[in-house]
């Protein structure tokens, strides 16, 4: 059972990583990065590295998403040049 969860989470990690690069909308990219970090956090906790999972959840999924959104808030939808 644990093996199947591993495979599902790993697939989701790859999907979110590719989607974060491919997608054009910056806000969607920031959210996908958050989802990516959360999946990584689940992976760490499956492997038993709970401290790393905790850091990944608070820094990767939490604060860095906020930083991304705060930076994207100051961009415009269309490029100026």
């Amino acid at each position, binding site marked *: 059972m644990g093996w199947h969860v591993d495979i599902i989470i790993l697939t989701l990690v790859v999907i979110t990583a590719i989607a974060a690069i491919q997608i054009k909308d910056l806000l969607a990219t920031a959210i996908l990065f958050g989802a990516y970090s959360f999946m990584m956090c689940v992976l760490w906790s499956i492997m038993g590295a709970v401290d790393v999972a*905790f850091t990944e959840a608070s*820094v990767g999924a*939490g604060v860095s998403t906020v*930083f991304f959104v705060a930076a994207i808030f100051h961009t415009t939808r269309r490029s100026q040049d």
Partner: protein
Amino acid sequence: MRYIALIVVLLSGLVLLYTEKDLPPWGDPNSPASLHVSPKYLRDSLQETAVPNVVTSVLADYRGYDTMFETTVIFCAGLACFVLLRVFKVERKEAHYRHKATGLIIHVKVPNLLDNSSEFERVDTMWVPHDLILKTMCRFLIPFIQLFALYVVAHGHHSPGGGFQGGVILGASIILLSISFDLRTGLERVNERSISLMSATGVFVFTGIGAICLFLGSQFLNYGILSKILGVDPVMSRSWGIFGVEVGVAITVMAVMIGIYNYISSEGKLDEGL
């Protein structure tokens, strides 16, 4: 050009996959990483440092030097954001004010006209009217978030957590205040001066504890010698030393997180935020 980049990325991916078969299997007790120092840490951590969570004792005691410079790296990140983003000459040409009694918003083209008025309060240009539910929920949640952060810092000896995670959660609580109200409310609680002071204080606490050990006649960051001033046995004083160091890390991380958010969200002007 795109295809060349794609080929390079695919090739390096294939090389990585090729080398992957030489790595030891996950959790292999005979892998080199599990043979040298890991068994010693797992066996002796509790007797030597009185810390049940081996990750914390390795992070803050056995490899305390690494953590000290990690904290310095965080401090430098905050410093870099300050140097790159902070704008000191803010010329405000106009401002929006709300009349407190009627809720009327006025747009003033004379700068700082109504800043000290008791009838008006300043609102952001992108102000969204009356987000009462959001504000009340955040005001209700923030004390619990901060309490949990303090628990994470203090309970890092026994459960996952420690200075970094607790500091990030503490910073996130203030960031939540700045997002749900506005940046000026967050700055009223934790202003720029205290952010700068705290981000340096954390590093100072960490290195200071190391230096105290040095002055008491032991090695740098060898907390066992702290038993001379703490009045407990060397094993317990190691535990206390780890706790002091974690508090230092938490102070720096919290201040730097709030600082980076403030500079990014207000374009360095610290005037109107997200």
